[in-house]
């Protein structure tokens, strides 16, 4: 789960990392109140994507009236597909220096990597590309976490030795987000060093692991309801489906993530566009297919559906009967093309044909068929 900035900062604060004074505002009135209390503030849209400033989602306000009108403009705005549900009003900092601190999963190393750089406030991936030596790196032992001397080395390697006394304990606190919250990525960029030598989190990103939600209920319960989310993805999640909304017109169901992604690719290659990704898993059981079709047909942009199933242990004739039943239960009238292969594929295809469903011999042929039918 990607936390919003104010949520990430609440978590950082709970770990003992200083954050600037700030208030969440759900209405322009609350934003005005926050400014009256805090003085000049930055009014910041809360969405889980970068580039808020460029999109007009961050405005400075020196008076409560300014803050009110800034919030009026920002709340409800659309930023990269997310409707802004609320703003975070944050007091100004006396910035002497901006640095970078973060951790993420280094997939190649199969390990967590801590990163520190004197170049704060810039895109760290750009820094990594242009001057990789400007980033100091540490792979902490995942069983015991980083030791003081390792962090000391990290801080000196980053050329920030003069701030070691403040930075070493702060990095240690940030690292606690891994064992305590199953965090996968955290980024404090910039980490601000103030005129009086304090270290404060200027911005914050935090992503936690959905696979760990069985032991991390608290954060999810507290924060997951804030964003509206895509209505089809919300519905799919309720029904226990693995579903991602896309912007094309062909609904897709596949069994297996790789097979399903490959199906989206073939639809595009055939000149169409997929409306979604939907992986119904290995078994392709009838009620799961019906659930998936229900969600896909909620989307008015969908003009036809392509189902790509490879039956391994599940038999093709069973899958075919399930598909026919699902279509009939839903009274589906849009074009439907099914590519069914694997165990008992001949029997399965015969059942589809008898029931007026177009079978495709290969995934590629099926993709061309559905694109032709939905043009």
């Amino acid at each position, binding site marked *: 789960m990607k936390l919003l900035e104010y949520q990430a900062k609440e978590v950082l604060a709970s770990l003992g990392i200083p954050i600037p004074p700030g208030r969440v505002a759900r209405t322009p009135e609350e934003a005005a109140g926050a400014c009256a209390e805090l003085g000049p503030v930055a009014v910041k849209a809360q969405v889980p*994507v970068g580039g808020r400033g460029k999109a007009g989602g961050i405005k400075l306000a020196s008076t409560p009236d300014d803050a009110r009108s800034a919030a009026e403009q920002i709340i409800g705005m659309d930023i990269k597909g997310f409707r802004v549900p609320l703003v975070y009003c944050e007091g100004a900092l006396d910035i002497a220096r901006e640095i970078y601190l973060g951790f993420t*999963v280094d*997939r*190649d190393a*199969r*390990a*967590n990597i801590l990163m520190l750089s004197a170049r704060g406030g810039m895109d760290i*991936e750009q820094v990594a590309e242009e001057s990789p030596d400007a980033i100091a790196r540490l792979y902490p*032992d*995942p*069983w015991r976490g980083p030791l003081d001397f390792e962090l000391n080395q990290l801080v000196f390697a980053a050329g920030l030795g003069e701030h070691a006394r403040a930075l070493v304990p702060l990095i240690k606190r940030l690292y606690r987000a*891994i*064992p305590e919250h*199953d965090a*996968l990525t955290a980024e404090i960029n910039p980490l601000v060093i103030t005129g009086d030598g304090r270290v404060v989190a200027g911005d914050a990103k935090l992503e936690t*692991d*959905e*696979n*760990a939600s*069985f*032991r991390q209920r608290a954060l999810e319960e507290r924060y997951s309801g804030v964003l509206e989310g895509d209505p089809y993805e919300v519905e799919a999640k309720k029904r226990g489906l*693995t579903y*991602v909304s*896309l912007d094309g017109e062909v609904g897709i169901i*596949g*069994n*297996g*993530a*790789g*097979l*399903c*992604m*490959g199906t*989206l*690719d*073939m*639809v*595009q*290659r055939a000149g169409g566009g*997929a409306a979604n*990704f939907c*992986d119904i898993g*290995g078994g392709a059981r009838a009620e799961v297919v019906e659930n998936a079709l229900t969600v896909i047909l909620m989307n008015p942009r969908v003009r036809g559906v392509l189902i790509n199933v*490879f039956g*391994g*242990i599940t038999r093709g004739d069973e899958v075919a009967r399930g598909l026919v039943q699902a279509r009939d239960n839903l009274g589906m009238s849009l074009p439907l093309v099914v590519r069914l*292969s*694997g*165990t008992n594929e001949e029997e399965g295809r015969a059942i589809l044909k008898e029931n007026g469903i177009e079978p495709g011999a*290969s*995934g*590629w042929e099926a993709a061309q068929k559905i694109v032709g039918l939905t043009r």
Partner: protein
Amino acid sequence: MAILLDAQTPVIVQGITGREGSFHAEQMQLMGTRLVGGVTPGKGGGTHHGVPVFDTVAAAVRETGATASGIFVPGPYAADAIMEAAAAGVTLIACISEGIPIQDMIRVKAFLRDLPETRLIGANCPGLLTPGQAKIGIIPQRFSSPGSVGIVSRSGTLTYETMAALTAAGMGQSTIVGIGGDPVLGLSFSDVIALFERDQATTHLVVIGEIGGSDEERAAELLGRGSRLRTVAFISGRTAPEGKRMGHAGAIVSGNRGTARSKEEAFRAAGVAVAETTSEIVELLGAPVASHGGDEG
């Protein structure tokens, strides 16, 4: 003849009395796998599918001499199950379980660093299968046939589909290895390719990758340095949007990293043919190869 697994390998199943573990243990036996036991804490002393059940992996290894294990326990317990197997001396571990926290897997990887003999496949994978001999995991054997094509893949059903197409075209397989769809994995593409490279029975190779991470790029580099295997690569997810996880926890494009394009270009640069659709995999594998990174083949 094959890599990692053959008809002689003594195998146990962790979670053998669970629904998934029980079903697939039987499938493994049906294809001839030498299943010597199972583990379910609290059910030790009984038997299941005609093999003894033990409370711990250590006891199973002591009594049966098992060297390989298939893990079917729920995700929250799977990391511990992997470490239990490794600590008991099991050297081939295929973890089929999905939904394992990524930080658990990072700790497992650190744990395994002290056990260099242990090979972990997965997690969140279909396991491995040597046609006509044995399997650990859930790959349906009916689509396999013995032969000389090695397959290594991050996907499940896409692999079955490729196996079936190869078998239909008369091209049997040496071993099929599903390395899994998680971001932090046991064996990488490169690890498995290096094993196929040394296996004289394997002459052809299919690499099935997907978006996310850079294991495919590393595999391409390895193949580009010289290979005797005639290789075809396929990457799924070229139309996946940035920042969305496509089913597998590891299938995600982050910024400009992990794209299908980058992976395909890496394979092409290494002289490896890239299939545009799964049907093309068989065509390209059978077609004369114009340029190849190999120096022996």
